[in-house]
């Protein structure tokens, strides 16, 4: 008889420890206002407090904590990118992710699975080889593998030659992992709040105060606050916030849909991605298959999902795993991806002084959460752009100095 459970259930003071304090009133002034209480904004707040002792910080969000793209991604963590700057940055993030449960004292359910980027064409095999060489050069474990090796790594994958796009090989990235994306937001939120950061959900920014070319405060639905500086970390609304501050961004906001299946017994060890087939798939700790694909074909600020996307995605999933034909899909949803022309993010300064940008995260934002928080907090604290994020400056577009991460960052282009 579970007496302990009954006692617990009948307890009037239900023993739930409040994760972070109730939302306070907004103060008239903060040292730093971070717009966006998702993974990036909260990680920035956490490291501002932890690394720099800056705690007079308010994180504001129009919705609930972690309710934007942090809640909506397919939670893949990897560093097998193409450019050296990208590999360095994402690998710094992956290494921080490995210890994050320990750092935050909050279980983010980090699970290292290995990651297979399938190549269905000779051109894709060439790019895989290029990525493997850049990765190895920077001490990142990536290897080009043959179909025979793929069969050993992931036996359930359909390696038949009798399909429209047979698998010719793959880029195998052993550090590839998945985590519980919501827990990352909550862990950083708790850690930041414990150190004195204020978190203000349901507080929508309606204007940015700019005086003499510098940001001096924000107007919100709960009042106006002054601040020393502003950080914008609002994936899905980057252009709208930048517009409030008076400048444009090279960003198109496009829906990115995903779905999850009924739980199944564990069969899929690795994270499988196919650029040609526009699909990425992994199996969560709950046994659900988490599946995503390409972005929607036109810009939209709505997280509606479509049957067209589902039909297309399932066709490709079945080419890789034909035995899933009777799979039931439980949920389908979308996030809003801020797509840049070069499939690389924008971090650093903006045309407005004391207004810092964390934007353009497209379909590659979740894996960058710890590194983004670390280096953005360094920027805010010191006013100097750290070397690790200097290549991602907004200013690169005026120099036509684009990144070449299209192949490694996304699928279905």
């Amino acid at each position, binding site marked *: 008889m579970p007496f302990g459970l009954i006692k617990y259930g009948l307890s009037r003071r239900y023993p739930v420890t409040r994760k972070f304090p109730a939302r306070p009133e907004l103060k008239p002034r903060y040292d730093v206002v971070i717009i966006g209480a998702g993974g990036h904004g909260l990680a920035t707040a956490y490291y501002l407090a932890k690394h720099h002792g800056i705690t007079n910080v308010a994180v504001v969000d129009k919705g609930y904590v972690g309710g934007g793209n942090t809640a909506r991604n397919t939670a893949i963590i990897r560093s097998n990118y193409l450019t050296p700057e990208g590999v360095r940055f994402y690998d710094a993030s992956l290494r921080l992710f490995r210890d994050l449960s320990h750092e935050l004292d909050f279980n983010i359910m980090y699970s290292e699975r290995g990651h297979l980027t399938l190549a269905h064409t000779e051109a894709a095999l060439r790019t895989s080889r290029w990525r493997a060489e850049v990765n190895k050069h920077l001490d990142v474990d990536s290897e080009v593998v043959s179909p025979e090796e793929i069969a050993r790594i992931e036996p359930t994958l359909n390696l038949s030659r009798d399909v429209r796009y047979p698998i010719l090989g793959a880029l195998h990235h052993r550090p590839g992992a998945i985590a519980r994306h919501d827990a990352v937001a909550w862990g950083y939120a708790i850690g930041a709040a414990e150190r004195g950061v204020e978190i203000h959900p349901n507080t929508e920014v309606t204007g940015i105060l700019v005086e003499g070319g510098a940001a001096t405060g924000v107007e919100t639905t709960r009042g106006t606050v002054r601040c020393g500086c502003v950080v914008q970390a609002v994936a899905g609304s980057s*252009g709208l916030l930048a517009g409030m501050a008076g400048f444009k961004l090279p*960003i*198109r906001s496009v829906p990115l849909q995903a779905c999850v299946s009924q739980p199944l017994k564990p069969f899929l060890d690795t994270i499988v991605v196919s650029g040609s087939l526009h699909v990425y798939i992994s199996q969560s700790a709950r046994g659900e298959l988490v599946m995503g694909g390409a972005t929607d074909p036109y*810009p*939209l*600020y709505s997280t509606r999902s479509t049957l067209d996307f589902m039909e297309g995605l399932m066709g490709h999933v079945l080419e890789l795993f034909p035995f899933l034909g009777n799979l039931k899909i439980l949920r389908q949803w979308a996030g809003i991806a801020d797509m840049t022309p070069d499939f690389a993010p924008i971090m650093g300064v903006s045309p407005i002084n004391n207004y810092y940008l964390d934007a353009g995260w497209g379909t590659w934002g979740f894996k960058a959460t710890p590194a983004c928080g670390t280096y953005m907090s360094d920027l805010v604290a010191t006013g100097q752009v750290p070397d690790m994020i200097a290549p991602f400056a907004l200013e690169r*577009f005026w120099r*036509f100095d684009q990144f070449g991460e299209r192949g490694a960052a996304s699928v279905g282009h």
Partner: protein
Amino acid sequence: MKIMPCPLNGPCNISEFVYGGDVVNRPDPTACSDEAWADYVFMEDNAAGIVREWWYHVATAYWFIVERNTVTDEIVRTYSASEIYRPPDSGGTGGGGRF
């Protein structure tokens, strides 16, 4: 499926079309500043609300203009590009925008 009312072909599945970006007048690349050219190439309005943009029907290679609400996902109006862009009158300056 989502229907796109094509001015030439009538209502078709939106998957028959390709999105072509905002309707923006191109500055003269030989006369504008580098910054103005980079703004034209890279910077986006990315507006939330009714936008005016190019769309292309792939099968008939037909470019046309769409007014669409990027918040409600509704297509407001579609029309031929000739409503905005007219060839220059012979012997004089053209009306409306120029490519």
